[in-house]
């Protein structure tokens, strides 16, 4: 049984890649993931905010109240050096590379192509095998046009690509007017892979305190549908590899991802809830399913249910009334 796959040029022994989560933040749990069979791992993200704000925050609190009062001109000792977010992160990548043999994919999370882009190079230098660029933007500014927002993504990708030689994936949200067009633009701009889709933390309301609160909800496998659709549509229309993320919880979800045309299936929620050992279970179940259904390799099923390969490509294009239309067609 050949479970191997190729994701943005990286030869992987199987298509299961744990995505960025607290699990990939800890060396021991990454080692456990590797032992359970994970083919590669995406590190937790180095956030743009972390780079830009951490330094300001530290300076603020270390200098707050200083040089105001004769007896206490400062309040803290001054260490020679701080390992701020970027340094800590780069050390983590380097440590991971020393600890595990599977490819390590770094992750940069941000929105502008400012100074932080240079950290892409640092991540490469720290030993990362590839980089995932997690660009997100909630366009609350009514003056920004869709084109401007799209260009922001393209420019950021280009800026990062100019800085590194390792493959660069870009993780996207599904909220583009024309996803196909956006995917093509990114493909042309040099993306080595598209990771579909990003799940945003949606704010919630606390009615007791009348406050908006962040609320992390783990994914369910129902959420697989959206990326499944778009990977099916995009398959063979772009050169870049594709990773399906959001809603992968079982071997069935992995197999569906492959059939849609993804090169890897990324998972986090399932592993957070049921532990790193789930990778081994899912791999075993996948192999079993393939055996029972006579698939010799992942390659064989890849894209087999993409839009171009199915009997009814329009199934991917309709948003509602799918069943009704389908029934009507059958009738005629």
């Amino acid at each position, binding site marked *: 049984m050949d479970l191997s796959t190729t994701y943005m040029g990286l030869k992987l022994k199987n298509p299961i890649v744990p995505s960025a989560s607290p699990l990939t933040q800890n060396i021991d749990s990454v080692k456990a993931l590797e032992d359970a069979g994970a083919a590669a791992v995406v590190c937790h993200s180095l956030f743009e905010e972390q*780079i*830009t*704000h*951490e*330094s*300001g925050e*530290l*300076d*603020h*609190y*270390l*200098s*707050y*109240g*200083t*040089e*105001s*009062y*004769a*007896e*206490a*001109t*400062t*309040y*803290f*000792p*001054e*260490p*020679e*050096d*701080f*390992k*701020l977010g970027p340094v*800590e992160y780069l050390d983590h990548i380097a440590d991971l590379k020393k600890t595990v043999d599977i490819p390590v994919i770094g992750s940069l999370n941000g929105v502008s192509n400012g*100074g932080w882009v240079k950290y892409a190079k640092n991540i490469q230098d720290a030993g990362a095998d590839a980089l995932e660029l997690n660009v997100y933007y909630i366009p609350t500014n009514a003056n920004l046009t869709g084109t401007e927002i799209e260009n922001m993504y393209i420019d950021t990708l280009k800026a990062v690509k100019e800085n590194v030689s390792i493959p660069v994936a870009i993780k996207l949200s599904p909220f583009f007017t024309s996803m196909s067009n956006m995917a093509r633009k990114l493909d042309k701009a040099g993306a080595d892979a598209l990771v579909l889709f990003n799940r945003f933390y949606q704010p919630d309301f606390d009615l007791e305190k*009348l*406050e908006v609160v962040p609320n992390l909800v783990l994914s369910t496998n129902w959420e697989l549908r959206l990326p499944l659709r778009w990977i099916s549509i995009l398959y063979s229309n772009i050169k870049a590899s594709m990773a399906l993320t959001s809603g992968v919880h079982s071997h069935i979800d992995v197999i569906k991802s492959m059939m849609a045309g993804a090169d890897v299936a990324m998972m986090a929620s399932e592993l957070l809830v049921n532990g790193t050992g789930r990778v081994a279970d899912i791999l075993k179940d996948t192999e079993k399913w393939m055996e029972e259904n006579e698939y010799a390799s992942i390659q064989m099923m890849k894209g087999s249910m993409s839009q171009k390969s199915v009997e009814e490509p329009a199934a991917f294009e309709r948003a509602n009334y799918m069943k009704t239309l389908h029934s009507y067609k059958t009738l005629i």
Partner: protein
Amino acid sequence: MERQKITIDGNEAAAYISYHVSEVVAIYPITPSSGMGEMSDEWAAKGKKNIWDTVPHVAELQSEGGASGAVHGALQSGSLTTTFTASQGLLLMIPNMFKIAGELTSTVFHVSARSIAASALSIFGDHSDVMAARQTGFGLLASGSVQEVMDLALITHKSTLESRIPFVHFFDGFRSSHEVQKIEQLTKEDIRAMIDDKYVAEHKKRALTPDNPFIRGTAQNPDVYFQGRETVNKFYNECPEIVQNAMNEFAKLTGRQYNLFDYYGAPDAKRVIIIMGSGAEAVEETVEYMAERMEEKVGVLKIRLYRPFSVDHFLKALPKTVEKIAVLDRTKEPGSAGEPVYLDVVTAISENMTSDEPMFSKMPKIIGGRYGLSSKEFTPAMVKAVYDELKKDKPKNHFTIGINDDVTFTSLDFDPNFQVEGNDVTRCLFYGLGADGTVGANKNSIKIIGEETENYAQGYFVYDSKKSGSTTVSHLRFGKKPIHSTYLIETANFIGCHQFNLLEKFDVLERIVDGGTFLLNSPFSKDEVWDKLPRKYQEVIINKKLNFYVIDGITVAKNTGMGARINTIMQTCFFAISGILPKDEAIEQIKKAIKKTYGAKGEEIVRKNYEAVDQTLENLHKIDIPEKASSTLELPPIVSDNAPDYVKNVLAKMMEGKGDNVSVSQMPIDGTFPSATTQWEKRNIALEIPAWDPEVCIQCNKCTLVCPHAAIRVKVYDEALTANAPESFKWTKAKGKEFEENSVYTIQVAAEDCTGCELCFEVCPAKNKKEVRLKALNMVEQIPIREMERANYDFFLNLPEFDRTKVNMGTVKGCQLLQPLFEYSGACSGCGETPYVKLVSQLFGDRTIVANATGCSSIYGGNLPTTPWAVNKDGRGPAWSNSLFEDNAEFGFGMRLSIDKQAEYAREILVKLKDKIGVEITESILTNAQSNEADIYEQREKVAELKEKLEKLDSNEAKILLTIADYLVKKSVWIMGGDGWAYDIGYGGLDHVIASGKNVNILVMDTEVYSNTGGQCSKATGMGAVAKFAASGKPTPKKDLGMMAMNYGNVYVAKIAMGANDAQTIKAFLEAEAYDGPSLIIAYSHCIAHGINMAKGMDSQKLAVDSGHWPLFRFNPDNLKEGKNPLKLDSKAPKIKLKDYIYTETRYKMLTKSNPEAAAKLLNFAQAEVYKNWKLYEQMAAFDYSGNGNQEVEEKTEE
């Protein structure tokens, strides 16, 4: 060898040497010496090695007494050991100093000499401490400048090893310890060359060791003790020569020759001043000027080695022509025949003149004088006045200089216009706020000028006495020659005012020279600014033909993400205008300095600063000066016309920065000051203040409870009283059945006293249902509503206070109706301590006496010019005093003893006079339990009646009772202080006092560091927290003071955190006060030294409790009487992980950034500790006390 030129302060210079020649460093914080310990700890944490290539062990002790004990022990065990201290700290070391000297043990204590607390504490510099230790047998060696501190520190370390005499190396607190000067740094090789390992080996050979046992420290008897003391004489005899040799050797190495006594001036001088310390620099400068410009034959003898005092060297150093000598002492010894140096000089010269070989043809006339106490300015004008006095036939002896003594007329007059500084020195003054980074920027500027140009540079920084909204004045000098001006700048070429509103508070341009430069940070544009200047400033600018520049630094800071910090911007302006360096070079150097200062904190902060530099020049404008002043703006008075005369005539001078002009007769003779003076100091430091929305308010009063400054208050009163209210005054119907029908409710902000901390806004639970971002309190700009709110607050203050006897004190809502008698202190904005202090003042203030340990609370509670302890309309309020740092529990205990005795005596006389006074009133007074406000009210009424009756009795006993009758009303003793006192230096006393069973109430405001001295580690510091003296993170758990106190069984103990449970806080205070025995309240106090957003301080308290770090409990021994468990836990089991609390605070988080491995390890330990402690508390609280175990024990004993 090329030595590096560096710009550092005196503390760093001393620590640099002592660290390199020590193996053990024992430390304890005390201003102004703390910096030496802090640096040593930081260097050790970074692995910096001494000259023997090993990292010294640096250890903090619980007090200076402890530090000196540790030094003694380390010395006896063979290590080269040092310590640093000042003032009371040195006094606490004296017992060990006698031992160390008696045992001829080599060591150096570096002392930044500071005043001793007498009628008042002062953190500033003089020689009172050193002089108090002069009898110990330690050598005393004085330095007068930063360069000397480094040089003589090394000479002292060499001398102690070779002479076996231990030394105090001292230099003037603040003037030398904190002055930044460009100096030549001695290299490690220099230090190595000076220290002879032969003597080090001998020192080690004398160590106690079981491999070669002996005993040292015996007890002796009348037969031999005396002889034993005389054995050391030859060492003292030889010591001066050893020190001189060390100085000579040092001169060969560096070219800088020092002598035991250095004479400077005319070789044939007739008038000579003898002085030691930094004042000698100013005298030298004056002598030079008088010789050059006035052709006066004067000289100065600088004493370096004061003990052992070498008469021989001293006499040889004096010119033979001298006829008159003035000896200047920087100390006061009341009742003595003269101050110490004076007496030594008189003795030395008299001995010589009565010997066979007199040095002088005629006995010189010698006078002594005091100068410079508590860093009082000592200027060339004063020096000149002393020389002038010496000219007189009968010069005044035992004079003072620098003050106006209009009581005993000791002071010499001086001409303040006499100045010696020439055009070869650039003198710059900068007025700023602590918060705006002015001092930091100036320190950087000095470094740039000192280290990147040929110029010598000096910086000295003056801070006001407030911890919030404090103003700073930076004094910077630059010039081609070494700078000896050890006094504040008197006339400046350049004045920068970094905050526009300071123009109103100080006479900013008072010291500018004609044609000087004035840089103003202005919120007004270049076209508007002229018209916004008060007339006085316009006139000075025109008359003195000043070059006037403005910049809107706040806007530039905002645009570049710098917030309120305008430091880099103003620094760039200074370099751009002053021309000290070519513009491009200056910019490059500023950026280099930015990189150096901020580099470790990440690139972003460096980038922002760079951007601020780049945007500055385009926003800097020179203003064209009109020919005539046009402004109608006049400077406001410093205090209101309604203020009492003492405030207007004396305290206002201090507020204005002119306290030097207060005369002796205007000062109280015994340190007694009137209460309630902060109300007259309107500081207007808040940019934004809370505005009240009565419609949204739920009247919970949480806002007033948490206010650190009593600047937001609540009153419930009769609606009829609003008839004459100002138009903008707000009220609403009072909610609650406890109020009368027509009661209305007002929350009022003291706009001019509020510091804008936002604690009230954050804690306000009431949200506007139509727009949830709004609450019942919302922050609004202060300036537009200042006048309006001033009128509202005046009206509010005149409304009657709520009747204390009708208040439900056990609730937040109730107790906040009580008048705060602790108001508008100088505590930090958002202080976590003062809400507790204020609560005590509300609950019990009218019958409270406070013993306050030295620390933050004694500073915001008692630092001049104005003090916050207030009085109510009846003239009652807390009586407050501070004794020392270490003895506060005992101090309060003494108060209790005294009050109890007076009350007992009063009752005894009352019983005796029963028949004359009346049985009914006597019985009423004697039997009143005074357990609530109504009882106390009644008791006061009865005592008033009693006093009336006593007035009419003509008996001695009646007269006595009249003086003590007020003690018949219950008095509440509150012993307050921080964790440095309670956990460390004062723990022994605290332990004794709680064991005494006496009815005292102890409030420990636990900030988990020594906050007042800048955040040094205490035993209250949490494991893993970074603090000074624990730069690598505190490796051990926090001491559980509450558990230790509970162990006695008869002590009321409560652990509280207002932000987590305000109701429990109030209960604890009421129970503690009601408990007839010792009570201990340990109160979590968030602090600026935690590195938190102070507006969210109450949230930090909640997290501390939720994580289990700070379990809330009350242990009430009274419960035992009912067979109940005395311990009641008031918080739940830990519900969040410790990391989710501690990593919201910089003190913990920074270790994850500087040493992540250590942080992770300590977090694990600390988390385990939390769970373990909680389990223990839970078990203790669950223990079944029913069944009267005591009785069983008694029965068994009887058998």
